[in-house]
């Protein structure tokens, strides 16, 4: 049974459908990426799941209990960081954790949590939050999301403001918690980072879910392709097309896809006396796959 089950939810803002028959599930221990362009309905969906926004029809079940705008009992084991960290400027990081820990009988260990999220106890733990950098606030927001030992954590753009090392560490933290059984629903525009992290993807566009898949399934949209630099790029493109493959010239490189394998491409090009100067195999790119799926959706396919 899914930990979170969102079923057929709708929400209108005037005439605009912000959520149109949204359905997806999140299983325990899974990291799910909620992906889509700006205004697609990602934050609206996350708000509905966290009980912050009403929905006109459908149902949201978390941990076997219903979540609605007026029924929040189930939210005790759900953490969230939506849009930007919610911080009281005059409280220190430690005071924030103490404040939010009052909610639950079994809060996470402060020291351990501060270490995991790199809120240094000797420095940031004692400094008022108004003096924090954006990255520091973000880390505190993530710590707050984790303070109640949640079963599900909802993170909206959690990598905002983090430096590369912090992003790397956050990825490690999320992965280790997922391995312990904590589920994550994450939205981010940093698709390269998300690609390294998520198990499943939920693609949303114009308030509708257009695809739910595992990462492997999703990458099947993105065909294997080869990027070549040759002694005669125009001729290489022409040759590839004559073989029935897709080929384009892009920023001085020949992009070829549709051949059965790389050997076929090399043999054909060498056979035409064109020298291959460099060659790269490209596959499984989240951004490319997403753009392909969104383009198909916008065309109404």
């Amino acid at each position, binding site marked *: 049974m899914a930990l979170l089950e969102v079923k057929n939810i709708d929400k209108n803002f005037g005439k605009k459908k912000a959520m149109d028959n949204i359905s997806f599930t999140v299983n325990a221990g899974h990291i799910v990426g909620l992906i889509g362009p700006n205004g697609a309905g990602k934050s609206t969906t996350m708000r509905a799941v966290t009980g912050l926004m009403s929905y006109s029809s459908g149902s949201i079940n978390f941990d076997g209990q219903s979540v609605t705008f007026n029924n929040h009992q189930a939210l*005790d084991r759900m953490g969230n960081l939506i849009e930007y960290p919610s911080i009281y400027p005059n409280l220190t990081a430690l005071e924030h954790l103490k404040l939010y820990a009052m909610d639950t009988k079994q809060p996470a260990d402060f020291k351990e949590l501060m270490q995991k999220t790199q809120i240094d106890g000797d420095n940031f733990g004692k400094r008022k939050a108004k003096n924090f950098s954006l990255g520091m606030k973000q880390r505190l927001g993530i710590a707050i999301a984790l303070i109640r030992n949640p079963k599900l954590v909802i993170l909206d753009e959690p990598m905002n403001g983090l430096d590369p090392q912090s992003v790397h560490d956050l990825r490690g933290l999320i992965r280790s918690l997922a391995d312990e059984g904590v589920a994550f629903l994450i939205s981010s525009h940093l698709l390269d980072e998300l690609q390294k992290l998520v198990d499943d993807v939920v693609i949303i566009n114009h308030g509708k879910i257009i695809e739910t898949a595992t990462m492997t399934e999703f990458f099947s949209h993105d065909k294997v392709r080869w990027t070549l630099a040759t002694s005669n790029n125009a001729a290489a493109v022409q040759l590839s097309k004559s073989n029935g493959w897709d080929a384009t010239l892009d920023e001085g490189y020949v992009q070829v896809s549709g051949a059965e394998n790389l050997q076929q491409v090399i043999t054909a090009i060498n056979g035409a006396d064109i020298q291959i100067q460099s060659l790269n195999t490209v596959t499984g790119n989240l951004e490319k796959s997403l753009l392909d799926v969104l383009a198909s959706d916008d065309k109404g396919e």
Partner: protein
Amino acid sequence: MLTLMKQEYYKVFKQNRLAIWLVISFLFPLIIMGVFKSQRNGDTILAFGQGAIYIYMAGIIITALTVSQEFAFGTIRPLLSRRFSRGMVFASKLVLNFSIYIMLIVAAFIGTMISKIIFVPKFNFADKAGYAGNGWQMMGMQVFNILAGMIFVAGLVLLVTNLVKSSGAAIGMGVVMTIGTPIISSISAVLIQSAPILKWNPFNVYLGMNMYGSISSSAIKEMIKLSSNEVIIAYLVYIVLLYGIAYLIFKKRSV
């Protein structure tokens, strides 16, 4: 509810530095009677060393901040995405605010009693001190007036805060209601002149309640065209309306 209350007190002491507000409330009568010799009299003691105005202002500012800050800091989201219902969150804010008014009054009362001992030792609370009776009774009436006034103004402040999510507008409204009596009287008089039914306007009712206990019922009736009982009933109705509408806005708001 207990958890919510604990969290609200934690926030108001740490974030809004309630202790400082309370210390000022305590010091206010001591400073007024210590600095100004003309204020060393029974009337000033019964008026909490003129500290009522401070109690009003502090109460209004804290009321406005307790809600508007949650929107300004974005902390409204974690506040409302927990197991607690919005009704409980709203109720915890009301209980917090009311308890702060009591704390402010108690702090001012202690400061006033110390001021009395130091600066006006001959003042006797048992002596007749005004229309309502002796010194204790007048002071009790003063406490009632402060609390009744603050609950009304705080309801208005809470309503404005929930409507515009800004403490500035709410505090501005509260300040006008607190120190702008001439303005309120003028608005009320214009309204009543245009139509007698408008004697029920909230400003007029608020003015009437402010006078309650200080002057006779007939004098109140003469001034605001409402009897004491009518003032009390209308006052209660307005309080229910103000808090009810503020709650409905708070309950419906998507954040």
